[in-house]
């Protein structure tokens, strides 16, 4: 075989190798992109859902006359949940402080600070409104800035 034909064959093989290599890289990039998209979607969904679901589940478990209501704590909107144990009234306060959804359990009447609470999950803000007696409208901003809303109706009137 002549040198020219050998050279042409080598060039063709190398060109095919380059195309194959590019295809490999593109496939890997596409696969990584899909995984990243799925993981981002899962994380975003979880971030928006966890905090608000926690608050609404807590409110549903405290739906008794005079035990659940909206209020203010540390200058921010908060949800107050009261419980009587052995003659003492304890309050659970759900609020957002310093980038975290916090929960503070203490005896009613104690003047505690927002930093005394226990962190639940990262969050930016929580607003609580009562457009209708017994209906709490919650606006929750997750750590990634995603805004979620939820309504909880207290059949007992709160």
């Amino acid at each position, binding site marked *: 075989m002549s040198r020219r034909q050998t050279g042409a064959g080598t060039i063709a093989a190398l060109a095919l190798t380059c195309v*194959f290599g590019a295809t490999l890289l593109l*496939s890997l990039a596409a*696969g990584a992109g899909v995984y990243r998209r799925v*993981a981002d979607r899962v994380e975003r969904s979880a971030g928006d859902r966890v905090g608000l679901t926690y608050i609404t589940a807590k409110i549903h*478990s405290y739906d008794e006359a005079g035990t659940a209501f909206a209020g203010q704590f540390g200058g921010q909107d908060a949800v107050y949940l009261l419980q009587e144990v052995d003659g003492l009234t304890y309050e659970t306060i759900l609020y957002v402080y310093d980038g975290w959804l916090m929960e503070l359990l203490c005896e009613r009447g104690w003047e505690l600070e927002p930093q005394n609470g226990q962190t639940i999950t990262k969050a930016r803000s929580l607003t609580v409104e009562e457009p209708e007696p017994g209906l709490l409208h919650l606006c929750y901003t997750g750590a990634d800035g995603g805004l979620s809303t939820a309504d909880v109706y207290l*059949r*007992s009137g709160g």
Partner: protein
Amino acid sequence: MKRGGGVSGAVSLVMIFCVLCLAVFAVLTLSTADREAKLARLTAENAANYYEADRQAVELLANLAAGRDIPADVDWAMTGGEEGTLVDLTLPVGEEQSLEVRARLSQDAGSWEILRWRSVYSGDWAADETIEIWDGP
């Protein structure tokens, strides 16, 4: 032959490596998505169970107020009082939760006053005693 052999081997190795990477990505992505789908279905099922129990409780209160029969398998109790008839209902919400309802039917107004409508955990709870706590010498 040496140079050609080396390049040929490299192509095969790179191809195998990329196939392995793709396979790992695919399995990771599929397992993540599958787990998320299962969680979403579970969440939807729990919510459906809660609202079904909620609807049943409303129906039972309405039946009680109208003097209609209550199914025998319902956990309920009724006590009379000066302020009206007190009714306690407990309805299952799925396997591990219950809806506890307490309502008072005022005799003069003929309406329900809801005193309690809360969901409680009713599943088995076992304390974790795997950590040995030192209780003294």
